[in-house]
C-alpha cells in the first residue's frame, strides 16, 4: 500500500527552458549539433574557455602556504569590494575617495541583484520594480522573491526596427511612480543586444532624477559590450557624477570566465556617507539570513589577477580578443544571412553589442531548428554569437535560412516574443 506523504500534492515546477535545451544538447548524438542557447563564451573551436591566467592563478593558490578556508566576512573582504567598486567607477574615482560608493561581495550577478532587491523591498519598503521588455527571465523572479509586489515593464526593444524603442522607454519611465526601482542593463543587453547611446543614457538619467526613480544597474556583461571596460560602464559613472544614487550588481562570471565560482559584487552609490554603516549593517543581516557568508574562491582568483599589473593587462587584452572574435562572427553571420537572401531583416546584427543576437525567428522556427537541425536556440529567438565558429557558420546560417524561408509567411509579422528569456 502506498505510504501517504506530506508532499503528495506538490506540483511539478516549470522547467527552465535553458536547462532543458542544455540537457537535450548534451544527450544529442548528432555530429552537427550546435549550442547557441546558453550565454557563455566559446572559442574559435567551439570549446569552453578557462582563461589561461585564471588557471595559472589557481595553481598558485593551491601552493600558497598561507591559504586557509576560514569564513569570509559576511560582506566579503574590504580588498575585494574595493577592487570591484574601482573596476566600476575607476581606480581614482572621487566617489570612492569621498566614500559615496562602497561595495559588498555577492553570489555573482544574481546574488548582487537579490541582495540589493532584498534591501530595497524589506528595509526601504519599495514595492514596484520595472524591467525592460524583454529582459533576462530571472529579473522578475529575483525581485518578486525579494519581496517586491508590483512588477512592471518598460518598452525597450523595437520589434520593427530591431533597435531601441527609446521614445517608448522614456514615456514608460516618465509614467513610473516615485520610488519605482528601474533595472537597467549597462551593456550587452540580454537578450536584445541593444544598448542605449551615451546621449540616450543622459536622457534616461534626466527622467530618473526628475521622477525620483531608483536605478538598479545590472553589469553582467561588463567588458563584453564594447571590449573596453571603461566604455562599458559609462552609464554608471555618468549617474555617479550626477550624484544620482543607485545600486549596481556586478558579475565576474562572464568577464573572468568563472561562471560556476559565483563571484560578483553589489556596489552602492549614496549621497550620504554617514548612512553607510546603517546600510551595511542591514545588508549584513539580509545576507546572513540567506547564506551567511559568501564563497572565498572567487575573490581569491579575481583579486590576484586585478592586483597584479601583468595579469590585469593579460585580462584586459583577453577581453578585447574575445569581443573581437564575437564582433567578427557577428559580421560573418550577418553577411551570410544577407548573402543567402534569407527573408527578414538582418542588417542590424552588427549594430548590436554583447554576446547575443536577437534574430527575430519565431518560437515555431526555433523549435524546428532544435528538433530537426540540432541547433539549440531559445524560443525567443536569442542566439549566442559565441557559439558560432568558422566551422559551423555555414551549417548554422543555411539551417536558419531553410527554416525561415520555409515558414516565410510568418516572418514579416514580427511576433511579440514571450518575455521569458534565459541567461
Amino acid at each position: 500500500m502506498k505510504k501517504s506523504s506530506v508532499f503528495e500534492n506538490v506540483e511539478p515546477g516549470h522547467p527552465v527552458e535553458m536547462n532543458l535545451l542544455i540537457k537535450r544538447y548534451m544527450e544529442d548524438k548528432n555530429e552537427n549539433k550546435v549550442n547557441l542557447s546558453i550565454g557563455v563564451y566559446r572559442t574559435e573551436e567551439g570549446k569552453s574557455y578557462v582563461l589561461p591566467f585564471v588557471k595559472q592563478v589557481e595553481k598558485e593558490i593551491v601552493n600558497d602556504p598561507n591559504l586557509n578556508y576560514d569564513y569570509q566576512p559576511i560582506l566579503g573582504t574590504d580588498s575585494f569590494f574595493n577592487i570591484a567598486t574601482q573596476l566600476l567607477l575607476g581606480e581614482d574615482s572621487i566617489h570612492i575617495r569621498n566614500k559615496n560608493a562602497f561595495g559588498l561581495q555577492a553570489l555573482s550577478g544574481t546574488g548582487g541583484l537579490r541582495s540589493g532587491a532584498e534591501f530595497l523591498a524589506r528595509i526601504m519598503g519599495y514595492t514596484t520594480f520595472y524591467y525592460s521588455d524583454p529582459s533576462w527571465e530571472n529579473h522578475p523572479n529575483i525581485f518578486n522573491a525579494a519581496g517586491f509586489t508590483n512588477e512592471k515593464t518598460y518598452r525597450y526593444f523595437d520589434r520593427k526596427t530591431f533597435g531601441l524603442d527609446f521614445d517608448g522607454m522614456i514615456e514608460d519611465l516618465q509614467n513610473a511612480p516615485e520610488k519605482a526601482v528601474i533595472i537597467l542593463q549597462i551593456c550587452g543587453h540580454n537578450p536584445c543586444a541593444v544598448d542605449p547611446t551615451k546621449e540616450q543614457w543622459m536622457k534616461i538619467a534626466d527622467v530618473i532624477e526628475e521622477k525620483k526613480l531608483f536605478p538598479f544597474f545590472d553589469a553582467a556583461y561588463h567588458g563584453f559590450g564594447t571590449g573596453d571596460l571603461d566604455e562599458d560602464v559609462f552609464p554608471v559613472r555618468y549617474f555617479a557624477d550626477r550624484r544620482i544614487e543607485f545600486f549596481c550588481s556586478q558579475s565576474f562570471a562572464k568577464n573572468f570566465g568563472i561562471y560556476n565560482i559565483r563571484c560578483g559584487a553589489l556596489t552602492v552609490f549614496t549621497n550620504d556617507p554617514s548612512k553607510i554603516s546603517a546600510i551595511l549593517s542591514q545588508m549584513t543581516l539580509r545576507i546572513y539570513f540567506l547564506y551567511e557568508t559568501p564563497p572565498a574562491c572567487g575573490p581569491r582568483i579575481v583579486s590576484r589577477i586585478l592586483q597584479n599589473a601583468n595579469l590585469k593587462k593579460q585580462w584586459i587584452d583577453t577581453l578585447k580578443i574575445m569581443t573581437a572574435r564575437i564582433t567578427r562572427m557577428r559580421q560573418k553571420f550577418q553577411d551570410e544571412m544577407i548573402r543567402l537572401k534569407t527573408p527578414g531583416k538582418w542588417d542590424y546584427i552588427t549594430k548590436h553589442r554583447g554576446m547575443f543576437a536577437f534574430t527575430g525567428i519565431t518560437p515555431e522556427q526555433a523549435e524546428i531548428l532544435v528538433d530537426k537541425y540540432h541547433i539549440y536556440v531559445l524560443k525567443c529567438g536569442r542566439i549566442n554569437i559565441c557559439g558560432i565558429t568558422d566551422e559551423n557558420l555555414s551549417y548554422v546560417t543555411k539551417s536558419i535560412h531553410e527554416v525561415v524561408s520555409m515558414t516565410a509567411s510568418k516572418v514579416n509579422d514580427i511576433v511579440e516574443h514571450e518575455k521569458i528569456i534565459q541567461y
Partner: protein
Amino acid sequence: MSSKLLQNKGLTSILATRCSSWWSSVQMGPPDAILGVTEAFKKDTNPKKINLGVGAYRDDNGKPYVLPSVQKAEELLAKKALDKEYAPISGPADFCKLSIELALGESEELKAGLNATVQGISGTGSLRVGGAFLASFFPGPKEIYLPTPSWGNHTPIFKHSGLGVKQYKYYDPKTCGLDFQGALDDISKIPERSIILLHACAHNPTGVDPTPEQWQELSALIKKKNLFPYFDMAYQGFASGSVDKDAFAVRLFIRDGHQIALAQSYAKNMGLYGERAGAFSLITSSKDEAERTLSQLKILIRPMYSNPPIHGARIVSTILSTPDLRSEWLKDVKGMADRIISVRATLRKNLENLGSKKNWQHITDQIGMFCFTGMNADQSTRLCNEFSIYLTKDGRISMAGVTSKNVEYLAHGIHEVTK
C-alpha cells in the same frame, strides 16, 4: 569623459551641491553578538588573550587547519583543470549523490531514488532553501519548532523563509544537560503535522545531545504526533569522530519510516568554512514525488543565486569518491574531534584540580565545537574584562579556541569568576 559631458550640460554646480539621499530613514541593524566578540578580541593587546567566540576549528597552536585530505583534493583538482561552466541549479549530481549517501549510509530509500537533493550554500543556505520550500509547499501549519536554545541564526533564517518560529524545551541550565522530560512534554503538545527542527549531533550552542535511547523515544513520539522532522546536521564526523555514529539519529528516523528534511554542511567536518559547500535533501515517498519536489527546489534557488558555487562541492566530491582520500579524510576529521574531546577532558580536570566546588561534568558530557559552561552574563563579562578571555554572554565557549597551551589559563579564569 563624463565630467566633460556634464560641463556641456552646465551641471558642474551639481557636483558641489549636497544631494539628498534615499537612505535617511535607514536604521542601524542590531549588532551581531559573535562579531562583537571577535572585534573586541582583535583590539585586546593582552598576550594571554583567548578567543572563545571563534566558530572555526583551530589546531593545537590556535591556527586555522587545512585538512591534509582537502589539500590533496585541491592539488588533484588543479591538475584536472576542470571547466568553469555553470553548474546545474541543484549543483553537480555526483556531489548531491555523495552527500546524501554520506548522511544515510546504505539506504533502501536512496536505492529507490526517493531523495530530492540539492547543493546549498553550506549549512545556512541549505537551511534557507529548505525553509523556503516548506513555507511554500508544506501542507501542515507553516510553523517550525526549535529547541531552546538553538543556533541564533535559525530563527531569522526560518522567519525570513516565511515560517513562524516556536520553541520546545531542550536544555536544562540546572544540570547543563538535556531536559529530556521537558522536551517530551513540549513535543507532545506540538500540534499535529507541525515541523520540528532537530540538531542531528553536537547541538549548537549547548553541545548537549540525546543518547541513542533518547533518540529512539523521540522518534516514536514524533511519529505518534505526526510531526515533520527537519534535521540540521552541521557536524557529521566532527562530533564523535565517526561519521556513522554522528548520523545515528538521522538514520534511525529513516529506518523508523519518517519522511525527513535534512540540511548538511561541510564547513566543519571538511574545514571548508569559506567555500560554502552544503546540501539540502527531502526524503519523499516516491521517485515521482522526489522529481516534483526537486523541480520546485530549483525554482526557489534560481532567484537567490541561479546556481551554486562549485569549488567547495568539487573538493567534497573528490574526497568522498576517491577511496584513499576518503579514508584519509575520515582520519582527519577524527583527529579534529579527538583534539576537542581531549581538551575538554583537560579543561575539566584543571578546574577540578583547582579545587572548584562546581560540577564540571558537563564539559566532557557535551560534544562538538561548543560548550555551554553554565556561566552567566556577569561571569562571562568578567572573563572578558579581567582575563581577556572572550566568549558570548550566554556562557558558550568554542572548544576550537582551547589548546593545550591556553587551557590552564582558561581554567584559572573560569575558576576565578565562578568560585
